[in-house]
């Protein structure tokens, strides 16, 4: 599903965010990316989402070489990915239903279909009753779940989650992680960036560890910390 070959990423000011990354995530996997702040977790996800471009090497996602995904192909490429963020990034002037519907509206679905899918997605995160609420009326955990419902409503092949539990207490964090697990069980490849090592270890999933932009452990390796 995702293959990095000798990938380097440095920003304009010369800071090397990623150094010679080689990794492979197979289709249908659920993988955690961990490391301290600034280790390059977010950069890794941003490269996959094409928010940023890598400087050297090759990234292949879902059979597509990302260097060839340019211009008009970027939107189409992104429609196959779902995102969640630490700070939710919900639109506060729209209710829960409209927030979750966003990826479907972008892809040009009909209203009937949108309604069906949004309801199904909200049901899966347990927030069907809150569809008329506005994000600011919800708790942090609920907002994160709305974000997840939005990330999966268009049934993407790949789900990227950047620090999804950053602001939540351990109990809520576990709930969120289990939610991701459930989506993974229906075939979605899930990549979660998190520094919450204690939580990650409990989940018993492959872990990629980054330190100062370098790959410290790969999938299957044990964490030597």
């Amino acid at each position, binding site marked *: 599903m995702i293959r990095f070959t000798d990938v380097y990423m440095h920003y304009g000011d010369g800071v090397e965010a990623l150094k010679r990354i080689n990794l492979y995530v197979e289709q249908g996997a659920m993988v955690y990316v961990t490391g301290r702040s600034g280790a390059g977790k977010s950069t890794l996800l941003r490269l996959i*989402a*094409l*928010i*940023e*471009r890598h400087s050297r090497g090759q990234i292949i996602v879902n059979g597509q070489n990302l260097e060839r995904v340019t211009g*008009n192909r*970027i*939107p*189409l*490429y*992104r*429609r*196959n*990915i779902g*995102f969640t963020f630490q700070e939710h*990034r919900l*639109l506060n*002037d729209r209710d829960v239903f409209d927030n979750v519907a*966003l*990826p479907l*509206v*972008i*892809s*040009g679905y*009909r209203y009937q279909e949108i309604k069906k899918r949004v309801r199904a997605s909200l049901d899966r995160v347990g927030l069907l009753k809150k569809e008329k609420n506005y994000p600011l009326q919800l708790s942090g955990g609920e907002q994160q779940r709305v974000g997840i419902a*939005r990330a999966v409503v*268009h049934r993407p092949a790949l789900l990227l989650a950047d620090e999804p539990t950053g602001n939540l207490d351990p109990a809520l964090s576990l709930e969120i992680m289990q939610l991701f697990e459930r989506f993974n069980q229906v075939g979605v490849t899930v990549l979660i960036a998190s520094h919450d090592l204690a939580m990650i270890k409990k989940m018993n999933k492959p872990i990629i560890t980054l330190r100062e932009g370098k790959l410290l452990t790969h999938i299957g390796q044990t964490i030597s910390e």
Partner: protein
Amino acid sequence: MKKRATISGNTQGYIAILNTWLAQHARALIFSLGQIYKNPIGSLLTMAVIGVSLSLPAGFYILLDNAGRVTANWGGSMQITLFLNPDLADQEIVSLAETLRQHEYIDNIKLIDADEALEEYRRYSGFSEALTALDKNPLPAVILLNPARETIAAGEGEQLLEYLQNLEAVETAQFDRQWANRLFAFIEIFQRVVIVLSALLAFAVLLIIGNTIRLAIYHRRAEIEINKLFGATDAFIQRPFLYSGFIHGIGGSVMAWILLITSIKLLEQPVVKLAGLYASNFQLFSLSSGEVMVLIAIGGSLGLLGSWLAVQRNFKAIGLS
């Protein structure tokens, strides 16, 4: 059979694409209207500013239009007086009058010979006694003539005057309505001023719309970023802003129209009164329905252009990737 199936499949595909496209446009339009509905004061203020900007050139246009209607009748009353050479024989005077009557630039002429002139002078001047003391009529024969209306309209009155002046039989030729000519010249300058002013105010409307849209883009930055992340095309993201600019432009034109109607209503009474003093039944003309459509079309186009420019300029600044 198979081929036909493919064709109908393609057609269906195109119809589906067209439907999606229409739905996306309808969505963008409804969304833009919704944004205006949510923030009516801000939108109304923007439209009011556009309305004032558009009403100025449109108002001047109405003013010019009315000035044109008023002065259209003046060409006919514009008169040239020819004082003929006193040495001319009566026969020569009559034949000159006949030649001028045939002239294509001249509508009608009136000949007042020296005797008539003297008689008139005697009657109106009050110097009848003094005049009897003269042994010879000091007054020349006079021809009063009206230039053809087209001649005045084409601005060829001066050439006609010059032609007449150069006739041997004519001692002096003069426009009775020199001031009217000056007024026409002034109106011409005013027309140019209005054109320049219109261009400047159109530019102002572009800036107003551009700024409104720029602010809207920055205000909805988070939304734009999320849309982009979930695979929205640039066209999808830009559409609501373009519609918004278009709607503000149209709204502004309607405001301008309302302002103009109000102003004309306010002016109507005094103008009728003034016209009455000149024994005229002149009435102020407002914009025709065609002209209102043009005004709205101009407002809409300026709105669309302004928002397009703002979108082009500001999307790069916040663009992802």
